[in-house]
């Protein structure tokens, strides 16, 4: 029992990161109407910029902010492509474009980071925060969860209570009508991308030491991120937050069970499948009748 709890708690850190990535996925979907497959790859870009600087002797206190800025810039580049050429495209086209960009970013990222070449990922937040039922909870887990909760809360409040939040909501609902009342549509859209890039980069920096430290593995964290976003129906930040946490904990539990540990990577896929089937239950029921 204790080993299961240990495994579940070990999943908290990943769960926090999935939650942040999931909330970011909803952030970009709700505000710029893009199902973004590049989210984790953008975060990985920032993370590897930080690692490259750290490995070449730059102090962590400088490497981390530079990595965050790099994540924001990478996201801006993707956002610029989307806002310039695909702002009026259908949602499926936009999703396909970001999937293509993901492939491109992974190819370039693997080339620049030396493929499977091992890197020295520093523990940004080392140490144990407290013990929960005899199991150590790390600061990394606490901080990722705190960031995901804080990001969700701040995003909700910002959208509900500020003029820029109102403008972002208008932009997400009717981009052309928003432009026709004078909202700076492109600037706002690019800001959304930049914030997403910065937050994602920091989240991946925190959890990278616990993951396979190569560019592709980090980029493919988009799968649990989208699974979390799906749990939130690409609309609810809070549901995505809870969903991301749940996926992380289930993954942790699975890694503690010999039978399932080799298949724990499939859990986000199973979650996506289950959510999609659940969302179609009405149509299936109607057909059956």
């Amino acid at each position, binding site marked *: 029992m204790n080993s299961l709890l240990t495994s579940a708690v070990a999943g908290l850190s990943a769960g926090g990161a999935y939650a942040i990535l999931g909330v970011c996925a909803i952030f970009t979907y709700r505000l710029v109407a893009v199902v973004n497959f590049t989210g984790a790859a953008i975060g990985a870009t920032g993370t590897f910029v930080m690692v490259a600087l750290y490995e070449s002797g730059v102090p962590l206190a400088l490497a981390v902010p530079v990595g965050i800025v790099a994540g924001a810039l990478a996201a801006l580049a993707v956002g610029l492509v989307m806002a310039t050429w695909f702002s009026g495209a259908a949602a499926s086209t936009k999703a396909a474009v970001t999937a293509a960009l993901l492939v491109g970013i992974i190819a370039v990222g693997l080339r620049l980071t030396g493929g499977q070449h091992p890197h020295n990922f520093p523990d940004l937040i080392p140490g144990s925060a407290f013990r929960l039922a005899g199991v150590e909870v790390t600061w990394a887990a606490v901080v990722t969860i705190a960031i995901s909760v804080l990001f969700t809360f701040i995003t909700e409040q910002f959208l509900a209570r500020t003029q820029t939040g109102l403008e972002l909501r208008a932009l997400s609902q009717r981009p*052309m009508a928003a432009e026709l*009342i004078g909202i700076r549509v492109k600037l706002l859209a690019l800001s959304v991308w930049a914030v997403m890039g910065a937050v994602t980069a920091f989240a991946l920096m925190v959890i990278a030491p616990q993951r396979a430290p190569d560019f592709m593995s980090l980029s493919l964290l988009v799968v649990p991120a989208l699974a979390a976003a799906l749990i939130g129906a690409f609309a609810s930040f809070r549901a995505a937050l809870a969903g991301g946490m749940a996926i992380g904990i289930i993954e942790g539990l699975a890694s503690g069970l010999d039978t399932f540990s080799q298949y724990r990577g499939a859990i986000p896929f199973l979650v996506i499948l289950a959510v999609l089937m659940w969302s179609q239950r009405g149509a299936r029921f109607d057909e059956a009748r």
Partner: protein
Amino acid sequence: MTELTIKQLVVARGGIPVVRGIDLTVRSGEISVVLGSNGAGKTTSLEGISGIIPAKGAILLDGEDISGQAAGIRARRGLRHVEQGRTVFPEMTTEENLKVALAPGASLDEAYGLFPELVQRRDIKSAMLSGGEQQMLVIARALVGRPKVILIDEMSSGLAPVIVSRLMEAVRKLADGGMAVLLVEQFANLALGVGNRAYVLRRGAVVYNGGCEALLKDPARLHHLYLGDVADSVAMHA
């Protein structure tokens, strides 16, 4: 005194010219009405003027050519386009729809003064408003942006006559308050009743440019302007 002058406006859709070199003028305190049958190029003209779709020709706002500017910049310079289809922000309340467009120094009271009907609906999601209320909201939303010129496209579409009359009255108030209004409308008589100058488009060209009153008093001429050769042909066979 604001003046929007359009010279030789050409707008194409899918490479095919829909608007073929039209000239229009709208002045402060006036309503210029654009009439024409379906496919005449009325909506396309407005979309070209506001920058939704690319257009050739000169678009002079107070003498300055804004034709090279993006739609958002034209809007911020005082050109507001109320699209057809009642484009409210559906997940936002009535009040949020207004607040998001509020210009510095403008007040929500201006919107509620024009359409007191909206006061009681201020906290309702705009998707839940009736068609007439949504049309009021998009006009009020343009108003609180304190534009110099407002372009209104087919505001009567799908609405009851009593609501359309209410909207026409409100548009007249906007013009009387000093705004320049370019009104595209299918219901010719209602629009001519509130307008100052009329333009009739046929196949992308202006076939009438003159006072509204003259056209309102001569329905046969209006009918002929709408249908052109078809009207002559029908008359010959009658």
